[in-house]
């Protein structure tokens, strides 16, 4: 019998309905409670679990106690095996309030017993218990915690429940998360695994309307191909084949002597792999004439390389679930670097599946330099396969 690990971050999404742009940290939780926030993640987790339970009745659910999963599993009619313990645990908010000698906020005593450390511990316990898949309800903070704990060792699927959803590890809706989890656990051919970005932004900066997103890592995530293409379209290139095609096309177009800056991502990694080079998955590398010209480069290192090169091209791909090609997780490729290479030397690569998953939304550039963003806006000729480009809208 297949084992499903379940993690609910009850705090996730608390800040969103009350306009707090995130739910990390004690002050935000307190403010959220004061503004009458309700718990979003448990409700969404239950929707996903109900769908899962309906589609797949032979699954062994393993989770943590109470609000970290046990309650939602039972509510969805599943009998979970419960690991860990929250006995004697008191409200995190209440404890913090008491510690600082402040007045308890109404509702805080039955609210938020858990911390990010619990999420990480739960993820590690579930991995140790040999679960086949972890379904979690949360946002980018939760994804980051799980990624930190188990990396890409266990496949995960996110139920989008947080305020920040920049990572690419979530299904589109709770029901879709339940569907894809069921398909994956049943070994359905339509459900495949792929590496997806885990990103998080600095919430404090975000509240000041500055976005500073970082790429924290990759997790393996099942996806239902039926969302974007037929599971029975014979001969249709798989993800791997598509990446290989793109890599071949990029390499075929490389000019002798020119420098090629490769941003982070699995699509750009395919280019490096095809050249027989190791890619810094989370960082920016550069190649020239098929040889490595620099790995994991900082902005100033990039600038020096680009300025010294007779010609330089910047190869980027879509990072995260929002469609960003610049300004999220690849900030090393700064406005100065882009200007030095020449804005028309930007090469965007992405599989057609990735473009279609944006559902018509534009690709986004957010370099921090509005006039450059403006210049980069319009239409990009995105390399999608061997000999193929897709005209795709780019917005700032």
């Amino acid at each position: 019998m297949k084992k499903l690990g379940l993690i609910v971050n009850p705090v996730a999404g608390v800040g969103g309905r009350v306009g707090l742009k995130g739910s990390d940290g004690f002050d935000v939780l307190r403010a959220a409670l004061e503004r009458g926030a309700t718990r979003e993640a448990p409700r969404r987790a239950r929707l996903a679990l109900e769908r899962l339970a309906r589609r797949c009745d032979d699954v062994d659910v393993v989770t943590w106690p109470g609000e970290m999963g046990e309650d939602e599993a039972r509510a969805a009619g599943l009998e979970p095996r419960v690991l860990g313990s929250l006995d004697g645990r008191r409200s995190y908010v209440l404890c913090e309030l008491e510690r600082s000698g402040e007045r308890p906020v109404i509702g805080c005593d039955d609210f938020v017993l858990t911390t990010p450390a619990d999420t990480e511990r739960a993820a590690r316990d579930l991995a140790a218990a040999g679960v086949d898949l972890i379904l979690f309800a949360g946002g980018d903070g939760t994804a980051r915690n799980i990624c930190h704990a188990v990396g890409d060792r266990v496949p995960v699927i996110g139920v989008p429940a947080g305020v920040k959803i920049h990572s690419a590890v979530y299904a589109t809706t709770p029901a879709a998360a339940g569907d894809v989890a069921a398909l994956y656990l049943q070994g359905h051919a339509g459900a495949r695994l792929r590496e997806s970005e885990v990103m998080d932004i600095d919430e404090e900066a975000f509240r000041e309307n500055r976005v500073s997103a970082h790429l924290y890592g990759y997790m393996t995530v099942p996806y239902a191909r039926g969302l974007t293409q037929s599971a029975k379209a014979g001969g249709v290139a798989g993800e791997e084949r598509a990446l290989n095609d793109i890599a071949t096309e990029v390499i075929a177009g490389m000019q002798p002597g020119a420098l090629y800056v490769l941003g982070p991502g699995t699509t750009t990694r395919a280019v490096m792999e095809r050249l027989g080079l190791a890619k810094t998955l989370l960082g920016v590398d550069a190649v020239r004439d098929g040889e490595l010209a620099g790995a994991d480069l900082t902005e100033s290192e990039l600038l020096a390389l680009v300025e010294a090169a007779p010609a330089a091209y910047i190869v980027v791909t879509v990072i995260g679930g929002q469609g960003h090609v610049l300004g999220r997780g690849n900030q090393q490729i700064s406005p100065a670097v882009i200007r030095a290479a020449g804005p028309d030397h930007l090469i965007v690569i992405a599989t057609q599946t990735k473009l279609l998953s944006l559902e018509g939304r534009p690709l986004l550039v957010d370099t921090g330099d509005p006039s450059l963003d403006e210049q980069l806006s319009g239409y990009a000729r995105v390399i999608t396969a061997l000999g193929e480009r897709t005209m795709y809208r780019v917005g700032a």
Partner: protein
Amino acid sequence: MTLSPDQLKSAAAEKVAGLAKLRRDGGVLRDYRAPRWDEPFIMEQGTPGERGILVPLAEDGVTAEVGAAADYIPEGMARAAAPELPEMAQYQVMRHYLRYAQMTLGMDLGSDISEGTCTMKYSPKMHEELIRGHKAADLHPWQDEDTLQGLLEIVYATGQYLKAISGMDAFTLQPGGGSHAVYTNAAVMRRYFEARGELDQRTEMITTIFSHPCDAATPMVAGFKVITVMPDENGYPDLEAFRAAVSEKTVGCMITNPEDTGIYNPQIDKYVEILHDAGALAFTDQANANGILGYARARDAGFDACHFNLHKTFSSPHGCEGPATGAYMCTEKLAPYLPVPVVTKDGDRYHLDYDRPDSIGRVRGFLGNWMGVIRAYAWIRNLGPEGLKEVAEISVLNNNYLDNLLMAVKGVSRPYAEGHRRLDQVRYSLEQLKEDTGVGTEALRDRMVDFGIQSYWMSHHPWVVPEPFTPEPCETYSKADLDEWAAVIKKCSEEAYTDPQFVLDSPHAQPIDQMRRTEAMEDPDQWAFTWRKYKRRFKDKA
């Protein structure tokens, strides 16, 4: 509640049987159960030495006069060992294939409204008499053109009709299918620019995501790079993206109108203008021509070339029931590059003109699939110009009637161009149904066949519309057919909302169950197209 497999089976049977009652009570759904034969492969049947026909040996006198038949086989052509064929009596062979045929929802048996983008219309049986009669069937491809005048007249006349329908100047009916005609266009455009010395400069062909995939695939075969334009919010190819895609590198465009969404692009001439301003060419793939016959001519929108499928639009049977015939039409400018031979007329005589130095050469042997040409000729002659327009009118009317019924079905939506009518077909989405019930388009497709109608065409790859399906109720179908088809979709939707698992487990009334191991279809290492391969790969190992 968990039911045992037996209980599940009888529950399913009850539901299927319940439909018969619906029909008796005045409903339109029918009780249907496909025959299920546990029929082994023919290669696994037979008895050594058994024969279907016993051919008498030649009489001694004959052999004495002309020698043994085997001596006539050229050296090196004779088999060293007898072929491994099944050894069976004639009636056993007949029985075997009839059983397979019974397990198939074949042509003329069910409703083919389901097959959007395919224009599955009724192919008049009279046409089969024409092509199977001795006048046609006994022709030999190497006959001199003087003895082929009747056939050449039909080919020539059909070409003239298609020129009139499209507004073009020249034609070839040689391609053996729609995609083949589309490939012919890529090759013609290539030759055109080669002759002008611009081939090194012009390397990019433009298409749209809702055009048929052959509009992207065939230019690649012809050596071009392909640029795909996505739809704007109205479902039309994004005009600004199109403008941005066109440059001095552009060869031309290969696009469909109406696209597979059924939305006719009223600004199509603007796209053509952008291309011509850049010195590029414009081709329109008219696989979806059924809704515009007699109403919109490719030439009037400025196109330099277009094609028709004589199978589908012009009544010749589709796909493997064909064979297919692609008609390619172009303007005078591109005519020198057409495949040879071109059928020409000089006074009362018809000729096969091979003397065309700029031609791209042959794209198919002899005259191509002329059976499709004869059927199209008969069909056009039967209908006349007004009849062709009526075909377009009825198919658009049928489509919009069906649309009204389908849009009332819970979970069905019609993305793009809200408030604009579609022409010959619609690409619907079951995204809402999937979200509400977990039943997506593949599951619904597997269930609808339980009602004795053909499973629907979902979409070409890739799926831009989520959970898509694309019916095309062309002029063949009656109101009763349309009502039945919509009722099936409605019934399946209701089942999805009340008992999604029942739909997910379907089909329940078909000879085979759901294919669970679809990954094998994408893995060439698991394919076996011949018995020998199958034995080597699977049987000998077992």
